[in-house]
């Protein structure tokens, strides 16, 4: 799990800074579930938000004090910091439909899919 790597992948960040999605994924250690969640998140973002997202991974085992800020109980939890309002998605993000609903990305625009 490498947060830096995730941050590095921010294609299109300069192009549309106002529309950048800031996502924060909370995990607790590098458990298989955490890795699955991260992989799922990346896949979905690449598909639907290509170039418009920024993922921050927070490992609570390393930074337990951060759990309070976003009221994290479940692991993994994905928090949509931007755009407002804040949304929380819990689970390993394996249910793509739910993730899209949770992130308010649904229905997925087909033309974007074609372009991507």
């Amino acid at each position: 799990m490498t947060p830096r790597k995730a941050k590095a992948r921010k294609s299109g960040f300069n192009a549309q800074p106002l529309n950048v999605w800031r996502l924060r994924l909370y995990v607790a250690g590098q458990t298989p579930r955490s890795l699955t969640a991260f992989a799922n998140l990346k896949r979905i973002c690449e598909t639907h938000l290509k170039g418009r997202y920024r993922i921050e991974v927070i490992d609570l085992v390393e930074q337990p004090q951060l759990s309070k800020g976003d009221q994290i109980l479940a692991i993994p939890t994905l928090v949509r910091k931007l755009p407002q309002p804040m949304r929380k998605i819990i689970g390993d993000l394996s249910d793509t439909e739910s993730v899209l609903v949770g992130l308010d990305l649904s229905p997925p625009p087909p033309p974007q899919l074609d372009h991507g």
Partner: protein
Amino acid sequence: MLHREASLKPSPPAARLTKCPTGIQGLDEITGGGLPRGRSTLVCGGPGCGKTLLAAEFLVRGAVRFGEPGVFMSFEETETELKGNVALLGFDLPGLIRQRKLLLDHVYIERREIQETGEYDLEGLFVRLNHAIDSIHAKRVVLDTLEALFAGLPNDAILRAELRRLFRWLKDKGVTAIITGERGREHLTRHGLEEYVSDCVVVLDHRIHEQIATRHLRVVKYRGSQHGTNEYPFLIGEDGISVLPITSLGLDHAASSERISTGITRLDAMLGGKGFFRGSSILLTGTPGTGKTSAAAYFAQAAARRGERALFFAFEESPRQIMRNMRSIGLRLEPWVKRDLLHFHSARPTLYGLEMHLATMYKEIETFNPAVVVLDPMTSLLVAGSESETKSMVTRLIDYLKSKEISSLFTSLTHAGNPLQQSEITISSLMDSWLLLQDIEGNGERNRVLYVLKARGMAHSNQSREFLISHRGIDLVDAYIGPGGVLTGAARAAQTAKDKARLLAGRQEAARSARELERKRDALERRIAVMRSEYEAEKEEFRRSHEQVATRTRVVTADRTQLASLRHADVEKSAGKRSNPTAGKRKR
């Protein structure tokens, strides 16, 4: 269960459960020392029954009194709300938080914001709790209404699995935890938390009976430990929770043989001259207006006079009213109140439930520490509860008072026409002594009579005494007991006067007959004197005549001798013979 206990006993002492004192008044007594240390206790109850407060007090007392820092994880109230709520009870949370003795953590969870997408666990909560515990080295943890999670998280199955893991984790962590849960309809908690917390379960309850609400606490389960199983009333007062510690599991209080005065000399005299035993319970029953309160006030005052403290619970009159009324019979109570030897506590019986009354009394007694307690009148409490409840309450109160060697006097109002024994039977058996004040009606007046109906362990008079209340105070007077029955008041006075008159008449009669006798004796003596003088007269007569005879004889003899000599007859011999027989004999 029996088997378990049997197998527990021989186990090595290392396996024994250690307890974590809560510091909550009474709770430690019920649980025999506190909650199970290093384990979780479930506290459940309906809304507003004091769960959060109990949990908060557990932490605060732990931090302040036992040096055990605590973490309060709240799922409902925010830190600010919590601080405000317990500040009312005198807990200084901000101070404790600054000293790192306490940590508040508000876990906020809103279902609307949460979308579930696949598998997850509650590791975040674990991490968060772990961090909180480690940061202040907490020994105590409170999870206040963990069940909020059920509302916030959609997947019950995951949640249950995680809760099970949480409780195990808490145990491994070695913290003593209180988990609160909302009371459910069928289960102790709405979501069956009791399934997971199996060491100790405490149920709080807030019941309303006849418009009067009372809080109760019950230890439903305490694995590996004895505990009181009853429902104990508890009270949320200015300084937190106090559970009524009237456990009274046994009758093993000490019995003093010291006697204390009742304040009424004649009454003491009726009780073997010494009054009641210290620490005994006295019931004083009477119809309205028989002077129960006055007698009770005397009893309280007697204690104050001895330099002991007396606590007077009045359920009908205000302290000022009692003092004013007592002044009218010459009893001045104010000085004792000023000297802090006498304290009044007045409360309307309907103000709150019986248990609350008991709790208040208990607290008053704890703070005032009296030697004598007066409850006037106990029967007023019947308004606040049923007869059986009142009895159980009074039993507990008496037990408590006895355990503290406090002498107690309970007055009880009986209604005219109601057979005394019937209305008092439930209470009287608990009492060591029973004084009965009664009205006796007759001759157009009412008079008060006092009996000692029972006095355990002491000789007492079986007589009834007239109970007089005047501006000089209370006095007991021998009632008139005669062939006409017991007479009191004017009838007694009349009868006494009648008796006196009869006595006087008798005395006069006796004197008269004594005088008569005297007179008779005098007469007799006079007669004797007369007879004696007659006799003397006769005797004198007789002597005199005898002398005459003798004289005459002598004269005759002399004449004859003279005559004979004149005749010169041979009479010398015979003359000599006659006049001097010895000469005649000699001659012969």
